[in-house]
Structure formats: C-alpha cells, structure tokens
C-alpha cells in the first residue's frame, strides 16, 4: 500500500476518531511522523472541539496565504505533501517548523559536520531575499535611484555566490 501523501510504502496506519465516522490514514514513516507531530494536545483542554476547529480553519487560511519568497511554496503545501519546497522554507516558516522539528528530533540545533565552504549561503540567501523585497518596494514608490543601487548590489552578491 502506498502512502496517501507521497510515493513511499505506507507503514503507519492511523484510525482517527474525531467525528461520527472513522478516518483511516495510511502513511509512510516520514509523513506519519510529521502527521503525528502535528497532533499536539490542545494547550487549553477546556476549549470545545468546535472552537478548536474554527481556530484551525483560521490558522489554515493564514498559513495558506504565507508563501516562501523564493519558491512560492506555502506551509499548507508542506503539511499536505510532507516535503518542503526549497532550502529557504526553513527560514521562511521557521516559527511553524520549530515545534515540529523539536517533536521529531528533540533538538533545535545542529551538532556535527559543517561544510568547509559556502557556510554562509543560507544567510546570504536571506539577505538577497530582503534586498529583492526592498527593491520591489522602491520601484513601487518610484524611488528608482534606490532600486537601481539595490539591483547592482544584488547582482554583485549573486556573482559571488556562484560556485567557482
């Protein structure tokens, strides 16, 4: 049997009893882990299930709107597929991902091997994203001088980032 969210074989079988009907889920290990780590108990146990549902719907709508500047993926898409869209998603969805990562790994910080070069790449990428955003805003308010200076800086940074 295939996982309902990706192509891997389903190894985790979950029966959810939330409403009048039983929901059966067949997931692979990775998707299962993500699914289960999202099933955190509500912080306030007195909250009625309906209320929780509405809150979830609002949350979901908000999540759907938030999109990674680099790849255009939403967090909602990640929840659906179990796979992120690009390395920058880790920065863009940091707040949403953190509890999940803590649930899976019981840790927040990498210990171990580091690349000997290109270590700054993700930070650089964040800088680039911010500059692109600023450039867009400058264009919108017709501040072309700032925009063109930003454009040159972006180009320079991108040149540096190219692997030698």
């Amino acid at each position, binding site marked *: 049997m295939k996982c309902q969210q990706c192509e891997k074989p389903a190894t985790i079988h979950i029966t959810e009893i939330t409403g009048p009907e039983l929901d059966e889920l067949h997931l692979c290990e990775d998707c299962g882990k993500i699914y289960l780590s999202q099933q955190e108990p509500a912080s306030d146990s007195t909250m009625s299930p309906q209320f929780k549902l509405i809150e979830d719907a609002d949350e979901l709508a908000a999540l759907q709107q938030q999109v990674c500047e680099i790849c255009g993926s939403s967090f909602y898409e990640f929840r659906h597929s179990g*796979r992120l869209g690009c390395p920058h998603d880790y920065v863009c969805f940091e707040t949403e991902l953190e509890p999940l990562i803590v649930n899976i790994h019981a840790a927040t910080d990498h210990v171990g091997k580091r690349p000997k070069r290109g270590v700054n790449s993700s930070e650089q990428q964040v800088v680039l994203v911010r500059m692109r955003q600023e450039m867009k805003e400058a264009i919108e308010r017709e501040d072309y001088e700032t925009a063109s200076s930003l454009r040159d800086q972006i180009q320079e940074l991108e040149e540096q980032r190219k692997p030698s």
Partner: protein
Amino acid sequence: MKLEELARQSSEWLRGSGPESDIVISCRIRLARNLANHPFIRRCSDTDLAAIERTLYETLQSEPKLQDVGYVNLKMLSEIDRQFLVERQLISREHADSNGARAVAIHPEEKFSLMINEEDHLRIQVMNSGLDLDATWEQTDAIDDVVEEHLSYAFHQRLGYLTACPTNVGTGMRVSVMFHLPALVLTQQIDKVFRSLQKMNLAVRGLYGEGSRAMGDFYQISNQITLGRSEKDLIQQVSDVVPQIIDYERRARDFLVHENQQDLHDRVSRAYGLLCSAQTISSEETMELLSSVRMGVNLGLIENLKIPTINKLFIHTQPAHLQKLRGTELDTANRNIERAHYLQRHLQQDGADAAENN
C-alpha cells in the same frame, strides 16, 4: 556500466563476511544533501531537475577520486533495469518510480551509490558487509567532502544540512545495520524487540524498507533523529544496540534448538526440500524458505550448503534479477517456473560441490 555484469556478482551488502555474519549482514550510512541554489525536488520543474542532474554529473566526472563509478541515467532505463537496481539496493523504490531527470552513480564493487534527484538532490550511501560503521562513516565523509569541494550545499548555521523533509535535517544522516532475525520471528518475540527499539528512537524496517512483515526475516535498524547529535554519536547510538540484538537472536535460536529441536529440524528440512524440488515458486515463498534454510545451515542442521550460495539466492531469485540472468522478459507465471529451476540448479550444484570437497 553494464548491468548484466552486476547481475552475476554478489552485492557487497549480501556478501555476508565479518564477525557474527550469521546474524549481522551489513551496515550502511547515507547522507542527504541538497544544492544551495536550487529548489527541493517537489518544487523542481523538469528544467530544474535536468540542471541539478547535469551539475552533479559534471562534478562526479571531473573528480579524479570518483572516476571509476558507473553512471546510470534512470530516465533512459527500462522498468526491469530500474527494478533490478532496487533489488540490489543501489536505488530506492521511489527513485525508480519517480519522473524526470534522475541518475545513480555506482561504485564498481557496489560499495557505494550516489542517488541523484531522489527525495533530495543527492543521497550518498555507503555499504559494507558485516559491521564496520567507523570505516563506513570514513568513506561516506570522504565522498561528501569531495563533492562539496565542487559545489555549495544547502546549509543553515543553526539547523545544519537542509533536507526536503524535516525528518532528515541536521546531519542528514541515516545509519543502518541489517540483521537476519529468523528465530526472533519464529518465537514471536520480534515485535517486543521492535517496541523497545522504538522507545530508543530507533527505526526498524524490512529488507526493502517495508513495514512490519519483513521479507526473508531481514531487518534494518537505524537512527530516527538526525538533528542535535553528531555523526559519531548517531553511529554510537546504533552500534550500542547491535550486541543486544545479536544476543536476543542467539537466545531465541538456542531456545529453538533445545526446546523445539524436532520442530526446528523439520521446518528447516522441509524448507530445503521445497526449494530443491518445487516446480513453480513465488518470490515471497522463496524468501521465507531461504530464511529457514539460512538459519538451518548456521545451526548445523543442513550440511553440504554454503552461506554465500544462500545469500546470493536471496537476491538472484528476485523478479528483475531472474529476468536479467535469463536474458529475457518473463511474466509472473513463467518467472515462478524459472525461479524454481534456478533454485534447483544452484542448490543441487552447491550440494554436489560440497560433497566432492568432503
């Protein structure tokens, strides 16, 4: 790379050498890596996939230390050939079945394979017979360094190596050890062992990553956590449970030998008899029977049969291998007939060779 030549040789991971090779089959380490300047696979267009594949291909080509690898373009490969690589564990099932530009670079003795555009852009996996995780890590680390000299990996100062699935973030490393545990299955203790391993954050999978009921009683045990611990720690975590599992399986075998000798001997002999004389046989049944025979040989209940022969039969009787060895495509019914003949030929020949040597 000629896949036909691979078909005839024994996979490194099923060579079955090293101490306690009756229970510990092999070990493997894999690293998940992604290129910094590309989206992850899910978000890749065909052009993106092709560009990543090209970049990695050129990197491997230009690197003298990786000159002897065979480069196989999966997109151009027939379904049987892809299945064949899955059976040899050189690629994963998802890698075989997905679409778009993807490839695998294979060491000539199958000691490592580099999967390109699997779930992550690059997956480095190194395999060794027996249990030598330190040497396996050294090789993995070295390949990773060599690749990294040419390109920038997606890396985050705090989170480490960034992977398509957050379950792999950090080291991107999975350390696994493959065991043959027929006695624990037979005595119905396997689930108990698994539950205790899961409590220690270790995952258990079958031979091809399947769930509860593993093919041929082969089980892989691996780390689940990849973040917050060093590579050495993760290796230690997996190594630490190996002696325990060996001990459990030994005790289960002792129990069977002492308390159930007759049943055990009967089971093993029947399995051997079936394999030697069946006229048509499925892959699943073959795996199950070979598992009993393997244990029987290791416990001295069957003579005239060598473990390497059985190890090889586990893989040579898989559907794609049978067809590659036969050199023609076969449907399920014909495969089952061909499999039965193949088993007869090799079991009888091995028996005859052993008798001659005595």
